[in-house]
């Protein structure tokens, strides 16, 4: 899978809540969902590179701007936890979704 997708311009909705109540140690840079590791969490920033029909489907499924998702699995394709449901997304989509990685509680403690 080639991931040489240049980072898209960030959507102008930056006020997405990106952290827990106890603040962030350091804000990771926004990236595509496909670059996230299994076990991590991220907030969706934009669906602009998914194609409009697919973006519409994803929003209806609850994967919309501002939603926090967890990456459950990425052994074959990516499996996400979206609002308590498990969604499997093909690589064409995960490469088109811009996210803000969230520090998982355990992970940030380890640095």
């Amino acid at each position, binding site marked *: 899978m080639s991931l040489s997708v240049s980072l898209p311009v960030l959507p102008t909705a930056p006020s997405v809540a990106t952290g827990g109540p106890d603040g962030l140690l350091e804000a990771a840079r926004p990236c595509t969902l496909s670059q996230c590791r299994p076990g991590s969490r991220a907030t969706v920033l934009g669906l602009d590179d998914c194609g*409009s*029909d697919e973006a519409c*489907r994803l929003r*209806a499924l*609850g994967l919309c701007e501002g939603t926090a998702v967890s990456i459950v*699995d990425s*052994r074959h394709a990516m499996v996400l936890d*979206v609002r308590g*449901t498990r969604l499997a997304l093909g690589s*064409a989509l995960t490469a088109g979704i811009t996210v803000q990685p969230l520090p998982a509680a355990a992970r940030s403690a380890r640095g």
Partner: protein
Amino acid sequence: MSEVAAPVVEPTPPTPRAPANEAVLRLALVGNPNTGKTTLFNALTGLRQRVGNFAGVTVERVEGFFRTTSGRRVSCLDLPGSYSLSASSPDEQIALEVLLGRARDGWRPDVIVVVADAAHLERNLFLASQVIELGVPVVIALNQMDAAEAKGISIDVPELIDALGVPVVPLVAKRGQGIDALGRACEIAVTLPAPSRRFTLAPAVTEALAPMVERLEANGLTTSAAELEALRLLSIQHLEPHVAEVPGLDEARRHAAVTLGQIGIAPQRLESDSRYGWIGEVVARAVTTKEQYGRSLSDRIDGVVLHRVLGPVLFIALMAIVFQSVFTWAAPMQDAIEGLIATLGTLVGAVLPEGDLRSLVVDGIFAGVGGVLVFLPQISILFLVIGILEDSGYMARAAFLMDRVMRRVGLHGRSFIPMLSGYACAVPGIMATRVIENRQDRLATIMVVPLMSCSARLPVYTLLIGTFVPASTLPLGFGLQGLTLLGMYLLGTLAALGVAAIFKRTLLKGPVRPMILELPAYRWPSVRTLGVTVWQRAMLFVRRAGTVIMALSIVLWAMATYPRTSVDPSEPEVVQAEQQLEGSALGQVGKLIEPLVRPLGYDWKIGVSIAASFAAREVFVSTMGTIYGVGSDEENVQALGDRLRAERNPETGEPVYTTLVALGLMVFYVFALMCMSTTAITVREAGGGKLGWSWAAIQFGYMLALAYGAAWLVYTVGRALGY
């Protein structure tokens, strides 16, 4: 939460409220996939169901009937599973049209039941919030309460009723809990004022949408439904057919998008932002979730099922079981059915006087009935196994695992099971394509399923391989005969993949849509739902395909029987049969097509056998038996083989059947669609009527062309190489 100033505008005069027991209550059932919607439908209606297609499309229409506890008759339409009303698939399109009261058959719901999965309420409320705004009475069926409880989720139902403004009935459809209460809630709901939107948009947004709402209202929608449509249409890029004709709507939409953009709102995310924003508040009020520690059971099962190595191994093992069950478990049942029909035919034949009538009854009608019923074991077993895989949640994982492989030829992960079933029989395989949501992918799969070598080809392969391929053993213990058989199966499989790729790039061109697949939580399938599904599929086959198969059987019988030829009564019976067949319409067809099959190295006798087997390829062997005067019984296959080897061309004295001719004939049967049952089921599954027949014609035509071309190639190249 805003106060609702619901303008109670009734668009069309509602049917006058007749006292209970008189007017049939029309109920539409909608819901996300995997919410147990079909289980609920079966629990409500049992076997009182009618299966058909929505007019002009391949989407299945299932209507059922039941009575509420108070005796009110209800007709219940099970709409295709949808995640939203945003019509991104033909299924969702149909659901939207029915719910808006625009179905072509004029069916409008009196009440809509939204089936919501209690364990995943947040996502399910998206569709519910859209449906509530349609301006039709709504009841929420909160299903799988047991699964929610097990996940530590508790739902405050009164609070939810207050938040949604419609009746909410908690239930466990699988166990029949809450079914009666649902019926009563529907009766009550139709007497309540129609529900409407439960949140308000910012004034500037409402203002921007006003022109769209106005135009939709002028086109006959209620205010509430018009507001729903305005918001929904902003989130999708294309204009759906049913709104394309509303004058000025497209212009108003573009204008609204620009206005929204000016105040810093992205129009395509307005709907999801507002709805999920409101849903968040509703969930916060009505749902409490106990924090669960550790991974859920479903995730732990997925740890194995989606494992890099174990996953594919488990998948292959399960598919082997599917294949095995359809291939072998059905065989004794099929033999029993065939035996029973044959016995009955003989018994009836014994009472009838010798002659055409007896021949029609025994060889035409009883053979036809047998030809239909013989498929039932395979269809029932396949749908039972598929039902278990589907309802347990494994099917979504199988589609997930196969997606990357099938995507290479432009198909979907879900095309795999139908193609695998095709090895046993194309008929249940084609019926199984229903699991594929996308219409183009479904049709492409239907088109290629018959290329998988089915069990009916086996008698043809067995006769020809057994007779003409030497039983020599190759290194490593492989037998040449076995390898030839394997080669035939591989040839069909590769052709199926190749042809699917061609269809997806030409006639069924469409973007290969990226995978978006919900992996539902694993659960035990319901025996009742499985039973109803299997019964429904079996009956559907008997009714739809069965009639066609019967009719064609009788036509074929007539062609092999008429016109009567004077046969020499002093000859043995098998010779009389041979002479009769030669003089019949079918025999004449065989002679007529002889010039056509000559380039393949065949004579008229093979021509007749091919012509006869257009209805069912296994007929080839029995027709060859008849035509070579050894009788058509199975025990005579050995004698037939000997006869074929001895057959000489009367002019040249060379053997008619060389290994090359036999090989070409087998290749012909790998590709040719010689099976009227498959054609009948393709007509139905491709949409019925003219549409279905044209797809069936395409299927038949391309397979015949492929068969002829390949057989010719084998024969010509073989000759050139000196065989």
